[in-house]
């Protein structure tokens, strides 16, 4: 635990130093920014999909609400100090509206319902033109300085991963783990399972709401098919699975791999990145469902055969 904290502190210090050491490496800073943003989003998804085992295919809805809320408020001259927290809370409020009915469903039925919710939300954004600008979306005029964006995304990532690490070791974390492994048994041991799931979804949605703000201010453009798109929801599922579902650092590792594949392959040949993700996903599900961290754990065991250890990414 202390070693993990020390490692995290060194990593954060190094990432803070990067823009000062290499102020003109704009491409590198841009890639790091994307990794931070996707890492925070994947970590947020993992609170619900990994920790609590409630796999959602509709999480883009929360990102989209955060992005649109910030875009609309910024267009109306509202300060970021107000618009960013309000975006988080709007996404959180939306999670309660959909979570309370959706959590009456279990397992695959919940997952299917989230596809419907995500798509319905996208269609609302497309058709509520007076508020959202419809299909053509909303455009913002000026972005905050890249340095500020970089640190905002880093802060969001650190907050998200820190929250995940804290939850995992807490009473709440035990509730989510119990829900994931056997919801009925958890219920008979006193765990208010629906409340626990709803709380996890709320926290997850709030983080995605802030991620939406950061997204809108970076790209200066939000449209229904980008922020509310099904492919965004799928990306949020893929990253934690690649890295290690239900672990603290897995989603971040997944975000690094995801961002590199997308940056490298999408630039060379259209849609090759999708093929790569498909192959990667199948390989992981077939060979090592615990993802990259599971592979790392296997290597550790091969080196040190007698030790009986439990992975605790």
């Amino acid at each position: 635990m202390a070693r993990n904290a020390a490692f995290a502190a060194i990593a954060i210090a190094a990432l803070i130093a990067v823009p000062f050491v290499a102020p003109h490496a704009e491409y590198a800073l841009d890639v790091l920014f994307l990794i931070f943003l996707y890492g925070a989003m994947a970590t947020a998804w993992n609170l619900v999909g990994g920790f609590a085992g409630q796999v959602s295919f509709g999480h883009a809805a929360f990102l989209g609400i955060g992005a649109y809320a910030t875009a609309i408020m910024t267009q109306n001259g509202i300060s970021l100090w107000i618009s960013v927290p309000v975006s988080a809370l709007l996404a959180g409020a939306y999670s309660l509206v959909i979570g309370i009915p959706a959590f009456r469903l279990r397992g695959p039925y919940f997952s299917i319902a989230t596809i419907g919710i995500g798509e319905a939300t996208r269609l609302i954004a497309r058709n509520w033109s007076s508020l959202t600008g419809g299909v053509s979306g909303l455009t913002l005029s000026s972005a905050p300085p890249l340095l500020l964006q970089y640190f905002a995304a880093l802060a969001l990532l650190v907050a998200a991963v820190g929250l995940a690490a804290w939850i995992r070791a807490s009473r709440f974390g035990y509730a989510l783990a119990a829900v994931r492994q056997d919801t009925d048994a958890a219920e008979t041991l006193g765990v208010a399972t629906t409340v626990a799931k709803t709380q996890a979804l709320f926290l997850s949605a709030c983080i995605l709401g802030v991620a939406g703000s950061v997204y809108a201010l970076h790209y200066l453009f939000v449209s229904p098919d980008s922020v509310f798109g099904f492919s965004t929801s799928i990306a949020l599922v893929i990253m934690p699975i690649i890295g290690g579902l239900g672990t603290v650092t897995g989603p971040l590792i997944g975000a690094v791999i995801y961002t590199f594949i997308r940056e490298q392959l999408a630039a060379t040949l259209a849609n090759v990145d999708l093929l790569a993700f498909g192959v990667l996903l199948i390989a992981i599900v077939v060979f090592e469902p615990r993802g990259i961290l599971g592979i790392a754990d296997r290597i550790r065991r091969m080196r040190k055969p007698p030790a009986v250890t439990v992975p605790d990414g």
Partner: protein
Amino acid sequence: MADPILEGRGLTKRFGGLIAVDGVDIAIERGEICGLIGPNGAGKSTLFRLISGVMRPTAGTVTFNGRPITGRSAHDICVAGVAVTHQIVRPFRDMSVVENVMVGAFFGHRPRPRGRGGARAAAMEELEVCGLADRAESPARSLTLGGHKRLEIARALATRPKVLLLDEVLAGLNPTETDRTLDLVRTVRERGTTIVMVEHNLRAVRGVCSRIVVLVEGRKIVEGDPDAVLTDERVVSAYLGTAAHA
């Protein structure tokens, strides 16, 4: 029985056309070990589910400590003080033995234990009682069937129940494990926990229970002193499969 700790009145559960539990009245006395027996499909486990809040009864009421608990959620009822073990064991498979028990300590226990250390200490106490302390750090899935059954009991005990419903904790155990588990049941009863146990092992029931309730086809047919009940001709015929309507 002047002041039962747990009481069901007219409990009924229908699944479509099937009546699994049919108007059962049952009263559990403070501090007793009550056996609940009957042939397969008699509705014993369903009755437990109705009492513990896992299922809502179609009709009837459940009262615990004089207060109605009918229709309350399973976690509420657990926190109030009625714990249940599962006939088919349901460990949290990715957790260690002690972590499984910590879930009960964290959530079923009032006042709440202080942090992870508090929950862990409470869990270790129950593992000690259940003879699993030396397996505390093992993965739950590595236990034998006997170990799993004791883990079910340890988890339920960690919620500090006033009434413990044991659903076939002896099924599948060898004679040594059976004796060990029966000793555990007596120990728990001496701590002041009231016990209701569904059991097919009639010798064990006779050895440990102070009273027996017999269910057949969803109805209560006899209750009372173990020796009297087990020699009752209606019970004998129900078990031997001859006409049950003597």
